[in-house]
């Protein structure tokens, strides 16, 4: 950016190069553009003053921003600098993240971005010759063929830039995209921060400023051509600047003469130059700064964001985010990277059902808060830095509790904003202060007391095994190959117990040497951690790790994606390094190894719901689909599938808090989506919580009898060839 300015300001003397001094050169040298042609010295000096002022304003703004980030807490993301840079570069070069779920916007952005980059490289090239190589070494190259190709490429870049901007304007004005509506679901109309119209004005100012700079650039080019239409080395090569030439002919057609064009060019030159300089000066103060902040955010992306929440050092007394300075510098940078593209707003299940949460608004609220309190010279009093509360700019408690930590926002953010860790860390503070719904308090207390979320006695955990015709090994007492971590819902919930027993039979049939922890298993803690009850999570993780470490096994399997995630991704932080897989991959292997065989195939028309913790969290998209195909089912995908899967609403502890009555639940929203598939037989899930949520939603949304909700295990169970025939019918699904 800086050298875009520099291109117009020769940093080294001589400032004024007259045409005569170049007359002796051959024609190739004369095919070029003379900078500051016919400018008086004082006007060049004036331009210098404006230019350096712009740079000064820019630098001061950058300083204020950096000072703001430095007021955050430290973050360990500086490691692997080179790999991070390459990763960021690839993301930017391919525009991969920007094209997702909005191809047109991604392409338009690519036009603007690459147009901008080419124009930047172009001006940098002029600077290189004019201010460095020529004055220092007498080397020149910006003439002749090189100049002509240069002119052509930059003309095309300018066309790209303007085309991209026009599409963005069209999109804002006429497409009426809900994701570009900045009105907030967590505020009421009339609240001072409800509609965020300031952002809308800024968006338009940005688009208009950039398009004006581009357009006046072309106009300037055209005016120069008309002005110098008598100069052969300019006029004869005009078609190398096709847009400029076209416009020049139009101007001449309208009767503009060389002299008029010269005057017009002079006025326009100042307009274009000052506008461009103002644009640059304002970068750190406006949304334009995303050029830097988004790159930085992408560079410091944490691939484990949300999947592995940050641990709290034992000696650290404070927990969670209370004040704006409790955010790390990287999180503060994240806030500034947001361009309000609305992808998270659109993907969020809480927002979709009208809960008072939009991940975008949490980020923007915190950003506005940071800009207000951390940009001043002196840091305000601590009390003024509290981000929790009901005031303008603060984040509501209801907003934080609405989050289901499904990671839809983190996953789709094109600039690597990590919303969920921020939300959970803010919840940690609420929990620390005791602000928690009474019903959730009871669950947390039950988990602490009984090790499970169902308020059941520890002794009841293995009771589901009693109805099995065989005994499962007690892995605490004898070595096993596979340790089965069952999880709360699969152990205690009567409907899920049916599935759990089916899975036991499948493993037995396949000859897997497996065992359980019986009463010693505790809630794995995944959702407790996402509630923000970090102390209880530490207790659960440590208890399970110490139990598991006393046992002799090779790997863990679980039917519960939530347990799967925390054991796989978070237990290592507590010293628990275990190999773990979700049942879908184990079953797939057992079929591949021939240990399970099909006795029949199914002709169901089915759809599959990706559980957040298996899909988005752990990229387990394929194994369940391969199993479904293996069974012979016809799989019809819902619109929102794989990484865009729509949360059932149970995550982040929300399964323990009843959703408000009267508004649609996320699970019902999902049922509505599934019901659009014609002649759907089965809605397949692969998570115990999903089974509970969706069987309920099937009824409340009014689709009972139209299709059924089943665990994938149940379908596998229907098809597998069992040695003991009577076992198959022993457990008929009654739900």
């Amino acid at each position, binding site marked *: 950016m800086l050298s875009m300015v520099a291109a117009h300001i020769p940093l080294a003397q001589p400032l004024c190069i007259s045409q005569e001094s170049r007359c002796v050169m051959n024609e190739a040298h004369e095919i070029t553009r003379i900078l500051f042609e016919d400018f008086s010295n004082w006007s060049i000096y004036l331009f210098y003053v404006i230019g350096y002022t712009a740079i000064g304003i820019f630098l001061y703004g950058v300083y204020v921003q950096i000072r703001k980030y430095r007021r955050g807490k430290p973050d360990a993301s500086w490691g692997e600098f080179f790999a991070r840079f390459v990763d960021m570069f690839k993301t930017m070069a391919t525009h991969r993240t920007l094209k997702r779920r909005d191809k047109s916007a991604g392409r338009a952005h690519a036009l603007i971005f690459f147009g901008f980059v080419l124009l930047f490289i172009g001006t940098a090239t002029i600077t290189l010759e004019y201010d460095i190589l020529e004055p220092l070494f007498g080397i020149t190259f910006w003439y002749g063929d090189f100049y002509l190709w240069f002119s052509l490429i930059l003309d095309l870049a300018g066309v790209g830039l303007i085309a991209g901007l026009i599409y963005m304007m069209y999109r804002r004005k006429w497409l009426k995209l809900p994701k570009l509506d900045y009105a907030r679901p967590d505020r009421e109309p009339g609240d001072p921060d409800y509609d965020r119209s300031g952002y809308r004005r800024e968006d338009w100012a940005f688009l208009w400023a950039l398009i004006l700079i581009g357009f006046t650039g072309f106009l300037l080019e055209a005016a120069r051509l008309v002005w110098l239409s008598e100069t052969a080395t300019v006029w004869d090569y005009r078609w190398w600047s096709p847009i400029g030439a076209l416009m020049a002919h139009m101007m001449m057609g309208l009767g503009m003469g060389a002299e008029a064009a010269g005057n017009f060019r002079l006025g326009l030159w100042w307009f274009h130059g000052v506008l461009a300089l103002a644009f640059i000066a304002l970068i750190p103060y406006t949304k334009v700064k995303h050029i830097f902040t988004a790159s930085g955010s992408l560079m410091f992306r944490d691939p484990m964001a949300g999947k592995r929440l940050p641990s709290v050092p034992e000696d650290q007394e404070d*927990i969670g985010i209370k004040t704006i300075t409790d955010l790390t510098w990287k999180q503060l940078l994240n806030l500034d990277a947001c361009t309000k593209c609305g992808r998270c707003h659109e993907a969020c299940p809480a927002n979709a059902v009208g809960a008072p949460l939009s991940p975008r608004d949490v980020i923007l609220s915190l950003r506005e808060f940071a800009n207000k309190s951390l940009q001043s010279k002196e840091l305000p009093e601590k009390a003024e830095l509290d981000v929790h509360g009901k005031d303008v700019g603060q984040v509501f408690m209801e907003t934080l509790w609405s989050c289901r930590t499904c990671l839809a926002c983190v996953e789709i953010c094109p600039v690597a904003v990590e919303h969920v860790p921020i939300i959970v860390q803010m919840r940690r503070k609420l*929990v620390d202060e*005791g602000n928690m719904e009474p019903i959730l*308090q009871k669950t947390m*207390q039950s988990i602490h007391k009984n090790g499970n979320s169902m308020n059941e006695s520890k002794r009841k955990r293995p009771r589901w095994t009693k109805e099995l015709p065989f005994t499962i090994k007690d892995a605490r007492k004898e070595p096993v190959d596979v340790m089965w971590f069952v999880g709360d819902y699969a152990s205690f919930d009567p409907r899920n117990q049916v599935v759990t027993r089916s899975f036991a039979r499948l493993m037995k049939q396949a000859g897997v040497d497996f065992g359980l922890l019986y009463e010693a298993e505790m809630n794995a803690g995944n959702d407790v951690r996402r509630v923000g009850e970090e*102390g209880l999570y530490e*207790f659960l993780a440590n208890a399970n790790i110490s139990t598991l470490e006393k046992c002799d096994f090779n790997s863990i399997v679980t039917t519960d994606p939530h347990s799967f995630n925390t054991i796989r991704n978070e237990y290592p932080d507590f010293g628990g390094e275990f190999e773990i897989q979700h049942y879908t991959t184990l079953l797939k292997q057992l079929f591949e190894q021939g240990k399970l065989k099909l006795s029949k195939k199914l002709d169901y028309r089915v759809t599959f719901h990706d559980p957040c913790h298996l899909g988005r969290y752990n990229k387990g998209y394929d194994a369940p689909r391969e199993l479904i195909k293996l069974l012979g089912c016809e799989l019809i995908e819902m619109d929102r599938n794989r990484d865009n899967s729509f949360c059932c609403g149970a995550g982040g502890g929300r399964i323990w808090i009843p959703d408000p009555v009267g508004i649609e639940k996320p699970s019902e929203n999902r049922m509505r989506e599934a019901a659009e598939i014609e002649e759907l037989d089965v809605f397949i899930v692969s998570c115990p919580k999903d089974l509970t949520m969706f069987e309920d939603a099937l009824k409340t949304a009014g689709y009972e009898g139209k299709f059924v909700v089943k665990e994938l295990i149940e379908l596998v169970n229907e098809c597998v060839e069992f040695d003991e025939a009577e076992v198959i019918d022993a457990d008929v699904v009654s739900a």
Partner: protein
Amino acid sequence: MKILVAVKEVAALDEDFEIRDDELDVDEDFLLYDLNEWDDFSLEEAMVIKESSDTEVEVVVVSVGPERVDDILRKCLAKGADRAIRVWDDAMEGSDSVTIGRILSAVVEKEKPDMVFAGVQSSDDAAGSTGISLAASLNWPHAAVVAGLEYQPGSNKAKITRELEGGLSQIVEIDCPSVLTIQLGINTPRYASLRGIKQAAAKPVDEISLADLGLSDSDVGVDAALSRVRRMYIPEKGMASMIEGTPAEQAAKLAEIIREFKGE
């Protein structure tokens, strides 16, 4: 300004519990202990007063019981209580609510609080009399089943709302200091996070003995109690039966049962 909150560790039954051989209580192996639910609310009420007051308010929790009671006191400390006191002597075993009220009154004499809160009742014994007998021992004003409270720290009057039967409420002005027994729902109790409880483990719980309170063995325990448990048991179930037959037969049978109950 000081508020004393009397709390109790209550026992909940585990499933498949057994009655002790002497038939006086449930076998301790089957009991799960926790803070009495009502006390969550009375502590919260004290905390709300503390937090909204301009003057310094000290919230002290007190409980009568053996060492395991420290767990619930730590929970109270985690929720923000300033100090915790546990009164115990083996001689106190078998005390009834009147005796406990006497012990607590000795604590009040020592601590000299401006207000005393207790729960309406405990969820295990459900006698609903400890707070009131404490007020009687002290000869202080008292109000039971308080569902709303307006009180300025240091003021000599408090305005309370009491819950009456039949959906009625009663607003009462009471002289302070007084003993209030607090009803569920008066506020929303806060959560004691596990980290908070862990950190509270570092805070001391003052242990007070009989001698510290100027009481003797004969003032407490089963012999001083005015009531004694004679037997605890699970009542027979199966009192309901299904009346079979045609509607006419059912009606006849029903009439017969009614006549039998009327003693005809």
